[in-house]
């Protein structure tokens, strides 16, 4: 018997007892002793579980609310799929939709049918209420949704609601980092494609500025080059930063593009991102390039000098170089 099964049974049993037991206040008011409650068989239901969780969600403790969500997700594997689907389709309150959607997605991730996860994806893209669409989108975070929902994310980042678009961006970022560790090409390609598909520059910049591009395809790298020529400085800066992490076959072209762009660019934020990406692409070999760019923008001379000093330490891990550069700037 698995732990999740025991949990579901325990919760159902406690729910049943609460419905059957008499109220103490009633017993005290009437003054008559009541017979002990008799146990009656009752079928464990999604509704009973949902009622318990609905009551529990009124708690002021965020940790307790998170616990209830985990409890429902863990119980989902043993709950009848039809009842869970029906409850999800009936529910209109965004918070409960999110919990039920997370439970349906959990069923797929625990090795069951992908149909339950696709049902959540459908509601995330098609529900009339933007708050429900956003809730369903949140429920897909850190799941295998990217692999089972086709072009869902390219549609979600074009949603009419800014909240849905931003939730979709957060999903892509967190999936990239926590599900795929930044080293799964298709997941990174999905994120780049969604960033390029979005007409919301904040969403595009947020995705590109926070994903790993270490395993992207040639086509995705090409999209990053295209986005570098966009009108929005925030997007250009994020695209430049993303280009700094491309795989080895794309590095040479990326360096050439970024050096040329630095000279033509006027925005200081974009130029700062370019310097970081050049450092990341070349490590110590980027020092001559950085020296060549040092006097292009007087505002960024200290930034270029900090990179040159950090790269000259000979550190071989990007995270260590980045930390060293931050330390050098702190000490100034």
């Amino acid at each position, binding site marked *: 018997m*698995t*732990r*999740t099964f*025991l*949990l579901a049974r*325990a*919760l159902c049993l*406690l729910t049943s007892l*609460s419905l059957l*037991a*008499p*109220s*103490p206040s009633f017993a005290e008011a009437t003054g008559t002793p009541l017979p002990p409650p008799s146990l009656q068989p009752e079928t464990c239901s999604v509704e009973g579980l949902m009622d*318990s969780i609905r*009551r*529990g969600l009124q*708690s002021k403790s965020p940790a*307790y609310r*998170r*616990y*209830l969500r*985990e*409890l429902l997700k*863990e119980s989902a594997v043993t709950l009848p799929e039809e009842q869970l689907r029906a409850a999800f389709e009936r529910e209109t309150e965004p918070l409960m939709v999110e919990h039920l959607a997370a439970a349906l997605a*959990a069923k797929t*991730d*625990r*090795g069951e049918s992908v149909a339950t996860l696709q049902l959540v994806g459908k509601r995330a893209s098609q529900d009339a209420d933007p708050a429900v669409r956003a809730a369903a989108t949140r429920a897909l975070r*850190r*799941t*295998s949704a990217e*692999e089972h929902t086709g072009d869902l994310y390219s549609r979600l980042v074009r949603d009419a609601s800014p909240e849905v678009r931003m939730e979709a961006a957060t999903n892509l970022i967190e999936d990239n*980092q*926590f*599900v*795929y*560790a*930044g*080293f*799964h090409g298709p*997941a990174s390609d999905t994120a780049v494609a969604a960033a390029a598909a979005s007409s919301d520059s904040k969403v595009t910049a947020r995705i590109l500025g926070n994903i790993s591009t270490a395993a992207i395809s040639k086509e995705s790298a090409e999209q990053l080059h295209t986005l570098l020529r966009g009108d929005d400085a925030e997007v250009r800066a994020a695209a430049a930063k993303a280009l700094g992490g491309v795989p080895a076959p794309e590095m040479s072209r990326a360096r050439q593009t970024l050096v040329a762009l630095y000279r033509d660019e006027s925005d200081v934020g974009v130029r700062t991102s370019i310097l970081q990406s050049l450092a990341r692409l070349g490590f110590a070999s980027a020092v001559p390039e950085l020296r060549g760019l040092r006097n292009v923008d007087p505002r960024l001379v200290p930034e270029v000098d900090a990179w040159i000093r950090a790269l000259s330490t000979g550190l071989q*891990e990007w*995270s260590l170089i980045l930390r060293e550069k931050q330390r050098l700037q702190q000490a100034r």
Partner: protein
Amino acid sequence: MRSPKSRLAALTALVALPTAALAYTAVAPYPSTVTATTYYSSGTYHGAVDVANSRCNYWGAETGVSATVYWNVTVRTSGVVCNGNGSGNQNEALLNLGSGWSFRQWHWIKTSDSYDRTCNRCQVGNLGGTGNATGAHSHFQKDQYGTKNTSWYSSYTSKGEALDRGELMGYI
């Protein structure tokens, strides 16, 4: 009578939730006993957790991480092997943790579920003894660029402990 809140609060004791937001919880893949941790009985360094159950090719080998993650599955042995078939021949499910860190699950027997997959505690094979093994077991190892780390389990499990499926082994 207990209030609904206190009644539900009592259930918190039934579930082990991760305490660190960024750490993954490593859990046992089937009912098992911890047979080796940092050192074998012989004193030889091991630097990983072995959990064993005598019923080879009976229990499913679930991925031992309680989170949805991408598992890179490598099949080196296609047949049913319970007692070892040579070092380097173990079937492996590998979780890339970034920055050179990996978490590996070894020795399972290939089944139709043995393919790269993104899932939460799903089967990638059956309990077995492929590779360097003297019996059916699962080897869980966390390493960075090949150097093993022992801190992920050392405060959470020890040799001889009985584990149920899904029970905590450590945090990676």
